[in-house]
């Protein structure tokens, strides 16, 4: 680390890191030379479409899968050769993976019992014979009870998973991870089986949980809004490669490539292809992207198009326009905008720093002299 470091997180040993990790199944390369740093205490999201390798990465972190090449380090220690159990990690599965024959309390106690009791100590009646086993059992029960209380599961301890709702199962799965005090929490799309309202509530709870434990979380998701809302570091993965890693803000404001720009953001970004650029963009040949929320109707806007459709959403209004070169463009006006009749011509304006330019061949972000764009024609009526 010779370079001058500004971020204190980078001066610490990462809680978990991938050093040029590759994984292939047969000839199919699923992970291609991946490097990830998860700083201690960070909330890192692995974001990507299905099949991009994010779940494989998580499984390699957990020790459920082995990298074909490269190193996995846990607190600086190389752990590629260790099993899931030998690494002190906890994992929450998308399907929750609760043991259906055990009660909530037994489900949560299992990882502790496995760690602290021998094969004989885990037998059902061992507590009657050995005071040592009885003491450990008491400690485990106390710990389970305490964890269950913090998750609001106190009343459900004697239930079987089949008697729980999806949200409750989710909590039990979290509880099973929490009782253990692991180095790193790995969460594999834990909210994707919940209904929309519960999902949003659980986001807040997860963030609070992360703050309370102070441990590093690695969170796999395909939902960019989930990643943006919770994570302090997002690793965007596309086709087995890391497309960009950074804070949600960096990803949103400075997407490193066209694909990242397309993936991030609640509204799909507008792209203008290099070979068919509409009027109102810099002269330089590039693919340009502007997010709909940064393209608003103004009288002296740089671009002009014909209004085709309108979606009124209350706080804002979504406008669909057709530019003169045939491109379809989405723009957002605020909710009070007086929408003109369909078919009218509207001028749209953007702030120069909201314009993203990408290399037409590689899709990588390039710098474009935005100052040289044609100045907006002031005062022209719409």
């Amino acid at each position, binding site marked *: 680390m010779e370079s001058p470091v500004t971020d204190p997180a980078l001066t610490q040993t990462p809680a978990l890191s991938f050093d040029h990790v590759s994984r292939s199944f047969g000839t199919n390369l699923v992970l291609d030379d991946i490097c990830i740093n998860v700083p201690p205490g960070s909330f890192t999201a692995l974001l990507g479409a299905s099949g991009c390798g994010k779940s494989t990465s998580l499984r390699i972190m*957990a020790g*459920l899968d082995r990298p074909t090449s490269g190193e996995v380090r846990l607190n600086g220690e190389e752990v590629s050769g260790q*099993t899931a159990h030998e690494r002190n*990690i906890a994992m929450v*599965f998308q399907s929750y993976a*609760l*043991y259906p024959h055990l009660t909530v309390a037994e489900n949560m106690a299992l990882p502790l019992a496995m760690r602290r009791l021998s*094969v004989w100590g885990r037998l059902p009646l061992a507590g009657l014979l050995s005071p040592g086993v009885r003491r450990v059992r008491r400690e485990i029960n106390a710990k389970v009870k305490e964890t269950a209380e913090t998750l609001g599961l106190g009343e459900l301890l004697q239930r*079987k998973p089949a008697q729980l709702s999806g949200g409750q199962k989710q909590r039990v799965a979290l509880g099973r991870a929490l009782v253990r005090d692991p180095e790193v929490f790995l969460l594999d799309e834990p909210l994707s089986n919940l209904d929309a309202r519960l999902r949003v509530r659980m986001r807040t709870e997860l963030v609070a949980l992360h703050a309370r434990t102070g441990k590093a979380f690695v969170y796999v998701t395909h939902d960019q809004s989930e990643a943006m809302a919770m994570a302090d570091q997002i690793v965007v993965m596309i086709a087995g490669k890391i497309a960009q890693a950074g804070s949600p803000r960096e990803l949103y404001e400075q997407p490193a490539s066209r694909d990242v720009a397309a993936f991030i953001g609640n509204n799909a970004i507008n792209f203008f292809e290099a070979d068919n650029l509409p009027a109102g963009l810099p002269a330089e040949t590039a693919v340009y992207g502007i997010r709909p929320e940064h393209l608003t109707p103004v009288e002296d806007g740089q671009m002009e198009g014909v209004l085709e459709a309108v979606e009124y959403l209350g706080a804002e209004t979504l406008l669909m326009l057709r530019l003169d070169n045939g491109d379809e463009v989405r723009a957002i006006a605020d909710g009070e905008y007086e929408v003109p009749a369909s078919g009218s011509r509207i001028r749209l304006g953007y702030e120069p720093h909201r314009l993203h330019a990408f290399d037409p061949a590689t899709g990588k972000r390039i710098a474009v002299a935005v100052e040289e764009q044609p100045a907006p024609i002031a005062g022209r009526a719409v």
Partner: protein
Amino acid sequence: MALLPRMSIDRREALTTAWLTGPGIGVLVLFIFLPVAVVSFLSFTDYQFGASSFNWIGFDNYAKMFGSRIGRRAMVNTLIYVSIVIPFSVGFGLLVAMGLHRMVNWAPRFASALRTVYFLPVTATLVAMSVAWQMVLHPSLGIVNHMLAALGGTPENWLSDRGLVLYTLAMIGIWQTVGYNMVLFLAGLVAIPKDLYEAAEVDGAGDAWSRFWTVTWPMLGPTTLFVMVVTASNAFRVYETVATLTKGGPAYASDTLVYALYREGFLYFKAGYASAITVVLFVFLIVLTFAQFRIVERKVHYR
């Protein structure tokens, strides 16, 4: 429509229910409940096949069965046979299934070939197989005794030694049912979610022993119950091997309930007595099945 007065919705629903369930209930009554009733009735008489009359003799048939050495012998033999076949057939079935389930990952073709081999005895005609077993177990020509002799053991009369014959038949019974149980267990194993094994691995139950007791065995609970019920009811009805290999002999050492029922009913034409044996067998099976479902089912479906 106008001809019939419109029925109330309750009446119409009741009629639909009758329509839908009627045929099923009818067949059930005609082919199961009625024969059971007739047999139960006959078991209290001295009816003989072909006779034009019969006398009501109360519990005499049952008294004869429980009072005679031969009757008790058939019952005890059947119970011994069942108590050997159930644990071994279920145990081996599970073992073979787990072995094949693992083998599928590294030798899929070999695994599917082995699966077929294990299943062959189920599809083969047991009577024909019995002939093969007779050859294999033949005291002087059979390969078993030849191998025993080659290894320095003493040749045995597998099918004519009074102390051995029942165990020999039980062994053949196990051989015949392992394949069927294996297929059921394989289906059960495939249905266990992989996530559970991975969760177990993360939780520290990753070694073979803990995996089995934390995930495999509990998740196979419903399958195991079903396998046990099927194996038990088949074992209680053991007949073909007895009929073809030993005829219940020597000296009733391998006599079983169903063979006794066949002998009394179809060789000696004592329909009343045979009916009593049938009822006893029926009671055994009902008690066993109920016990298994009542006791085990609550522990197996995890609700």
